[in-house]
């Protein structure tokens, strides 16, 4: 009898914990450093790849410009940035990520640099289906001070389009707002990488802030 009551109490406690857990909103990101810096231009460095897929950095790196530029930032041309590093003997993303912020600022004249790490990229096979997943995390660093301005992560899956309502507001935004050609690319990971990049880098609450070229610049409280 006593044991039963304890059991019930335990369940009640769990339920209360869950309810209160849901009721409290996620902790808002501290944008103090970001707002003090307000970068105009972003140098996206070639992404680090923690996934086994060799082509992963291409799929992500090719699709970072759109969400950042449409959010109001100047984004340095990724193909030229990649070539400039190569011409200076830096071919590995790990070596590039280790270059001092002051040096990056000197070469490119960028306000901030974005360091991306790809954590998942490609097909995950289960019994019933094969799902393509792309996950990445990013850190935005002020190149004058070396301060961290923002960090975040995002993920996308090929399966989510099969439920209603998935994709979220940012996914809808991308399809509705941006008219771009994607039809000549055939591999299945590329569009998923595009969704993951958009989720990671489009300005949104707790995400990147809007940049100076956006009509929504400084609209966040």
């Amino acid at each position, binding site marked *: 009898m006593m044991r039963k009551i304890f059991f019930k109490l335990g369940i009640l406690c769990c339920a209360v914990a869950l309810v209160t857990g849901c009721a409290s909103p996620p902790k808002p990101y501290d944008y103090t450093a970001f707002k003090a810096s307000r970068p105009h231009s972003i140098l996206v460095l070639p992404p680090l790849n923690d996934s086994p897929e060799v082509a992963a950095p*291409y799929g992500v790196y090719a*699709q970072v410009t759109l969400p950042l530029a449409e959010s*109001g*930032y100047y984004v340095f041309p990724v193909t030229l940035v990649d070539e400039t590093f190569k011409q200076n003997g830096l071919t590995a993303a790990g070596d590039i990520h280790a270059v001092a912020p002051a040096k990056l600022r000197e070469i490119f004249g960028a306000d901030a640099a974005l360091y991306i790490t790809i954590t998942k990229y490609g097909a995950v096979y289960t019994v019933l289906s094969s799902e393509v997943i792309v996950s990445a995390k990013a850190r935005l660093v002020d190149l004058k001070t070396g301060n961290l301005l923002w960090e975040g992560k995002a993920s996308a899956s090929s399966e989510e389009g099969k439920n209603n309502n998935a994709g979220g507001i940012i996914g809808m935004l991308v399809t509705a*707002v941006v008219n*771009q050609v994607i039809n000549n*690319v055939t591999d299945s990971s590329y569009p998923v990488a595009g969704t993951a990049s958009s989720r990671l880098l489009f300005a949104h609450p707790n995400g990147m802030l809007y940049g100076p070229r956006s*009509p929504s610049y400084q609209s966040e409280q």
Partner: protein
Amino acid sequence: MNMAYKLLALAAGMALLGGCATKQTSLYQWENYQPEVYEYFKAKTGPEEQIAKLEESLEKIRAKGHVPPPGFHAHLGMLYAQVGSADKAIPEFKTEKELFPESATYMDRLLSKYSK
């Protein structure tokens, strides 16, 4: 000021007007920029083929009075430099700098390299 700025102002104005009509508009007309960047990284298409495709896109963008995204002109300039046409590369880097003064330091670096 100059033509590029006027175009930009016009695009921004149109974007604002468009915004009132419930639909958000994009800042840039992207066309095939990102897929071409992807092809470039995979080294699937040669520079000549890319130049042809991007010039075609640029015509479409200009016809509508829109602005190409950041990096578009610079990428095109790099492709021209790779096929040995520095004379065509230089104006592209200059246009990138005109449209996006944020790129000045980097574009000046590239311009001094290819102007030699």
